[in-house]
């Protein structure tokens, strides 16, 4: 990437793999469990978090020298809440059905620990451009996992991707269903997301042994 220096590029690339907020830092798990039953919801959730974290990091970074440290958490919450409300209203205006599926979880982006974590750990100590890259990077790392989990859960649980029946029609018994295949109801329920995330963590750590903690 000629556009970015190597150091800046790492701000985006690190959270995608070796410092992933979900699989390595184990943050933001609740939303990963709740909304990944459908790929579409995962994608929208990922986009929302990219928006909130990207903008939020810049805002906090710009204000970092004037926020009194005693009340910084409250200031951060206000910034997040503002951005989340924007996302929520946009979804309600342009994708009402989807906003009903995501229900309370858009609002709960406020409590997503990744966002508060990046504000605290990065934006309060870095300039706006680097904070922006860091925010985008971490949100992308979060989104990638959400989309992987959503992909497997929707494919195996409902036999669809983005709502399209890719495996055939389970009622008319066409496609793969003609051979006796059936959707796996287990993948629809939230514990399945926990197991899929667990498997991703397992695969990642067995490929990169440096990630395994000593204990």
């Amino acid at each position, binding site marked *: 990437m000629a556009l970015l220096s190597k150091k800046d590029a790492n701000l985006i690339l690190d959270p995608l793999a070796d410092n992933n907020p979900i699989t390595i830092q184990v943050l933001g798990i609740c939303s990963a469990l709740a909304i990944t039953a459908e790929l579409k919801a995962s994608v929208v959730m990922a986009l929302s978090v990219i928006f909130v974290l990207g903008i939020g990091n810049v805002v906090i970074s710009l204000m970092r020298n004037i926020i009194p440290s005693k009340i910084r958490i409250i200031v951060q919450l206000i910034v997040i809440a503002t951005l989340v409300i924007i996302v929520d209203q946009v979804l309600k205006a342009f994708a009402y059905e989807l906003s009903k599926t995501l229900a309370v979880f858009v609002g709960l982006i406020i409590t997503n620990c990744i966002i508060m974590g990046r504000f605290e750990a990065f934006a309060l100590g870095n300039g706006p451009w680097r904070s922006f890259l860091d925010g985008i990077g971490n949100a992308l790392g979060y989104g990638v996992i959400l989309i992987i989990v959503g992909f497997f859960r929707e494919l195996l649980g409902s036999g669809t991707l983005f709502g399209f029946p890719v495996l055939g029609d389970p009622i008319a018994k066409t496609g793969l269903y003609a051979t*006796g*295949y*059936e959707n*796996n*109801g*287990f*993948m629809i*329920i939230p514990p399945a997301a926990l*197991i899929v995330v*667990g498997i991703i963590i*397992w695969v990642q750590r067995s490929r990169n042994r440096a990630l395994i903690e000593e204990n």
Partner: protein
Amino acid sequence: MSHKKLTLKKRLHIIKHSLRGKKMAPAFNAFHTFLFTPDETTHSGSHVRGADDLKRTMNTVILALLPVLVFSFFNTGYQFYAAIDAANGTPRTVDLFGNFLTWENFWLGFTQVLPLLIVSYGVGLLVEFIFAVIKGHEVEEGYLVTGMLVPLIVPVDTPLWMLAVAVVFGVVIGKEVFGGTGMNILNPALTIRAFLFFAYPTWMSGDKVWVHQAVERTGTADAISGETILGSLAQNASYSYSTADMFFGFIPGSVGETSAFLILLGGLFLVFSKIASWRIMLSAVIGALVMGLIFNGVADMGWVGESSRFYGLMSFDFWKHLIVGGLAFGIVYMATDPVTGSQTNRGKWIYGFLIGFISVMIRVFNPAYPEGVFLAILLMNVFAPTIDHYVIRANVRKRLKRLKNATILPQADAGKMEELQAETV
């Protein structure tokens, strides 16, 4: 000794040495130790020699399961033909030598249950072998029992590919991720059952799946019933089985769970061979009876009306809960799993009691889960280490107290005692 006169045993040892350190060594060793005792001995330290190693333990459990398996062959066939007779308007009564122990019944059951058994062992052992080769450890014996339990706790018509998927899931997620046999938190056989139940509920519950072909025949002129006793009770319907039928197992249900009589024999065998804990079995029976009595009491007091959807199950004689459904099978063969159960004696009483208690509770309160026993055992598997922790801590505290009362300590040590006590909290 000339080369030709090498015995099989000797030859296998030669192959073993040539494979040492190679990737395939664990796979070979697994077959080898299945046939012969290994030729290695440990070289240092003192050892207690016992004949009851892990393999012997597992084989004893399998021995205790064999009568149940053979019975399941006959019962699968019998239930199928009995359901057809019932649909044709000529209900059967069981006659052990007349219409139960027949070649016809055996053959149908055999051809239905054997594929389940083969898939269970084939897939499960394959996963174990793959993990052993990748991780470079010996193949563990844990799957020998699990593989036998799995076909016995599923409905007879479970599609084989579903069973295979569930076995892969159960062995990998239930056992291998925790480090293999002896490290698992959940009973692998029940993990497989739970996976099937939540993934493919239409094949695992309802009023059709318990008798061979009942699902396929639904809606046709040859439709037959596949309802279990618990299923009938959940709908406040009557059932046509006598108490003796329930006890000896001439009722529909999961493949091997029906015969409380043979399970009882197997349980006694396990208790007398000291493989399974009698404390867990006894306390689980007590727990189930207590919960059953409470429900009977509630029904007798008239707190639930006859029209209530709980009435059928609540008014069911409390002791009959033990002989229908999977409760007996679960208590004898699954709750007593030494790896996932409580380890302390007092812990075993609590653990077993709650299994029985919660099983009957789930059964009555959620008729959609007639097999509450598998959920109850999995739940208690999770709590077993916590129970042990508190049992041990209570014991430590009791002994500290005794020590404090019994010895006259110098003043200086009194503080030390406080410290010890604080550590245990």
